[in-house]
């Protein structure tokens, strides 16, 4: 009585917020997915380009170099050359005058070419007796929206390229776990008896293998390879999935509608596909939404040990680990990748939850 009454009241209250959060979650996931997929190509910076003059720059919307950065960089350069300098800025060019008691070698201009702040220096003219040199330096306008890391690499580009890796690993490894786990668990659960016993003992044997040992063996045998990460993580994560699906199957196969399908003469694969899997979908989806974040974190752990993704390629897990080490000096290293990862996980969770509600898992 209570249930029927509650079901009738539901349509009024629930869908609007559920729908809104579903749309919001989908929008976030699509936005992050597109940004990670297209972003690195559109970005002016390569993910592995090092800007020596911009180490650990903070995030800002203003173009670099700022006047202070110009000043500091120039004084550092001229100090190294033991030369006095004076400059004036006019638009995108910087008029620089170098003075020295000794004659100024025009080759010093090359020092400025190496800097990330300027384009190619142009020698305008010499002062009296070569004691001064006039240079025109075009200033290179660079934007670092998210700032740069400890090696002077653009954090925005790195976050997006890391997203590619993390999402790819998260989704592919979860899919591996999903397909293997569901097929294995449903077969074991439905057939039952000795088939079930043997299949589940196999699961337990694989469970007993230490994960890191498995990864190391795989790396030793096949060499370091991006695909290995999916295989290794998928090979471990399907075990839980298989157990969950088996448990579900065991309870569902005793339901009358499965008996009815048997009475109709349906074949085993048809029963698994049409009856067992749709009705086990709730817990499967629920576990999948937990699995994707877990895989993303597992990947960063493997990479941390030096067995997964290697520098200069990166993933969110690695970026966050990096940021956490520099939390006091430059918090932006932690904040941006963490926000991306957090948003992705939250959106995935919300989506899974709404999906679960829609499938009515609570009713079972």
């Amino acid at each position, binding site marked *: 009585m209570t249930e029927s009454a509650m079901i009738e*009241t539901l349509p009024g209250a629930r869908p609007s917020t559920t729908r809104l959060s579903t749309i919001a979650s989908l929008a976030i996931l699509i936005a992050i997915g597109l940004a990670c997929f297209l972003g690195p190509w559109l970005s002016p910076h390569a993910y592995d380009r090092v800007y020596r003059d911009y180490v650990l720059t903070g995030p800002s919307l203003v173009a670099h170099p700022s006047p202070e950065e110009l000043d500091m960089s120039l004084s550092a350069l001229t100090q190294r050359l033991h030369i006095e300098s004076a400059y004036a800025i006019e638009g995108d060019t910087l008029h620089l005058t170098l003075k020295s008691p000794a004659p100024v070698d025009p080759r010093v201009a090359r020092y400025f070419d190496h800097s990330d702040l300027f384009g190619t220096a142009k020698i305008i003219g010499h002062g009296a007796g070569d004691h001064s040199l006039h240079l025109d330096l075009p200033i290179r306008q660079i934007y670092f929206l998210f700032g740069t890391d400890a090696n002077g690499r653009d954090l925005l580009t790195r976050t997006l390229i890391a997203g590619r890796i993390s999402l790819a690993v998260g989704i592919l490894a979860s899919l591996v776990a999903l397909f293997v786990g569901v097929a294995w668990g449903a077969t074991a659960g439905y057939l039952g008896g000795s088939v079930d016993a043997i299949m589940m003992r196999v699961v337990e044997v694989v469970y007993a293998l230490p994960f890191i040992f498995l990864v190391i063996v795989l790396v030793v045998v096949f060499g370091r390879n991006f695909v290995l990460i999916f295989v290794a993580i998928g090979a471990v994560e399907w075990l839980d999935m298989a157990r969950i699906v088996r448990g579900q199957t065991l309870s569902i196969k005793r339901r009358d509608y499965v008996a009815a399908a048997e009475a*109709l003469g349906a074949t085993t694969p048809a029963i698994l596909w049409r009856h067992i899997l749709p009705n086990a979908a709730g817990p499967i989806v629920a576990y999948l939404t937990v699995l994707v974040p877990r895989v993303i974190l597992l990947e960063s752990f493997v990479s941390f040990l030096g067995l997964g993704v290697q520098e200069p390629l990166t993933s969110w897990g690695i970026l966050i680990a990096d940021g956490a080490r520099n939390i006091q000096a430059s918090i932006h290293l932690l904040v941006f990748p963490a926000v991306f990862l957090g948003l992705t996980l939250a959106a995935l969770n919300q989506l899974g939850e709404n999906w679960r509600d829609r499938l009515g898992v609570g*009713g079972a």
Partner: protein
Amino acid sequence: MEEPAILSFDDLHVRYGAHEAVKGVSFDLARGQVVAIVGESGSGKSQTVLAAMRLLGPDALVEGKVLFEGKDLLRLPGKELNAIRGRRIAMIFQEPMSALDPFVPVGAQIAAVLRRHMDLSRAAAKTRAVELIDLVGIPEPTRRAHAYVHELSGGQRQRVAIAMAVSCNPEILIADEPTTALDVTVEARILDLITELKTRLGMAMIFISHDLGLVRRFADQIHVMRAGEIVESGPAHRILTAPEHEYTKMLLAAAPRAMNRAPQKDAPVLLEARDLSVHFSLRGGLFTTPKKVKAVGHVDVTLRQGQTLGLVGESGSGKSTLGRALLKLVPASGYISFEDRDLSPLNRAAMRPLRRKMQLVFQDPYGSLSPRMTIGDIVTEGLRVHEPHLSRADRDTRAAQALDEVRLDAVLRYRFPNELSGGQRQRVAIARAMILKPKLVVLDEPTSALDRSVQADILDLLAKLQSDHGLSYVFISHDLSVVRAMAEEIAVMKDGRVIEHGETADILTHAKDAYTQGLIAAATLKALQVA
């Protein structure tokens, strides 16, 4: 009747959002009186008392007054409410399992209630608990007090729940369908116990039931509820003998009328089983040998074309297992022939083409339809197996025809099972079986989970389908009054054996076995003969 009311409901409303489950219920309960609330599922009868006990969830909006000795239970602070609830007003629920803790021996559970509400010492509570277990008629009370819930039978569990409810000598006992989950013969004994305790302890009682016949024996007042409202109320004998409201009359037209069809001895034999046995093996532990449990032992069955065989027995008697064994859905030993063809050597794949001629309809219309499939998909699943050449459009047309045949709106085929009522679902289950045009249908308690009014419709439908298509039924039920309406022959089962077998009229009038006589007594107890 002149006594002041001990509990009075005054314009009670229960709302869930826009849905109003209880619409202004008012009635009084006098000291020592028995009030019965009768209605079908969804009529709001349980909601009424649960609201009074403040046991509804937070999303229920309760309005009105429930006065107990002048105090409004709906507005009482939690502490005072708890002093009344359990101590002075006790409840018994339909499913005793849900009221008892599976991890605590039943004696200790009762003692805990006594210590909490009556301030008894540990030893005194223990002694009293044993007395109470004795009071509710459980043999060997001292030993049973140490038993866990799973060690007791369904009837004993309900007895323990009753012992717990009456342990504090409550003034009011609320019984919410206390016997619905029990077998008919057990039901009769529990009702005897409740009536006896009521007179012995002088309690007032609110008895909730869907069955007017059941409450006739002890109710003083009857309130008939439908769709959240009391449609008729009055003294029991008046309601039962001279009902005024249409709905009450419909509830009273309890037993489906008998068809009294004579068995046709010359019809060809469709299904024959000889010496059929079903064993289940329980897997023991590592060191124990697997135990074999016999579910059905050495049963002979013959069913002729166009006839109905009734299988009657209580839960656990093996009648459902026998029904499935006849369709070779559970492994069985013995000889089965269908249309003169020996089925015993056939394996699952070999059985498949035969499946379309033998179908099964289940008791629980909620469990037998996959909640993830549309009605159309459910109904046409058999076509996908047996007529795979049909296109999607063909199947859709056939689904509409099948639904039409079971008198359902064809538009329903795009809906999901949870949008349908129990009766509609059972029609869908029947449509699923009928779409293949079978010869034999095993009906496993097809009407037991349904309300009385719906039950009659389904039986009508089944009878019509049988005469239209010349079907043979194996009709499994615990309720003799239903079987009587459908079957030409009856087989009574107990402990996996057929203990009595014969024509329906013979069995009903000259039952030889004591067990059969008990079943007949229980059935007539419900069938109203108050005239």
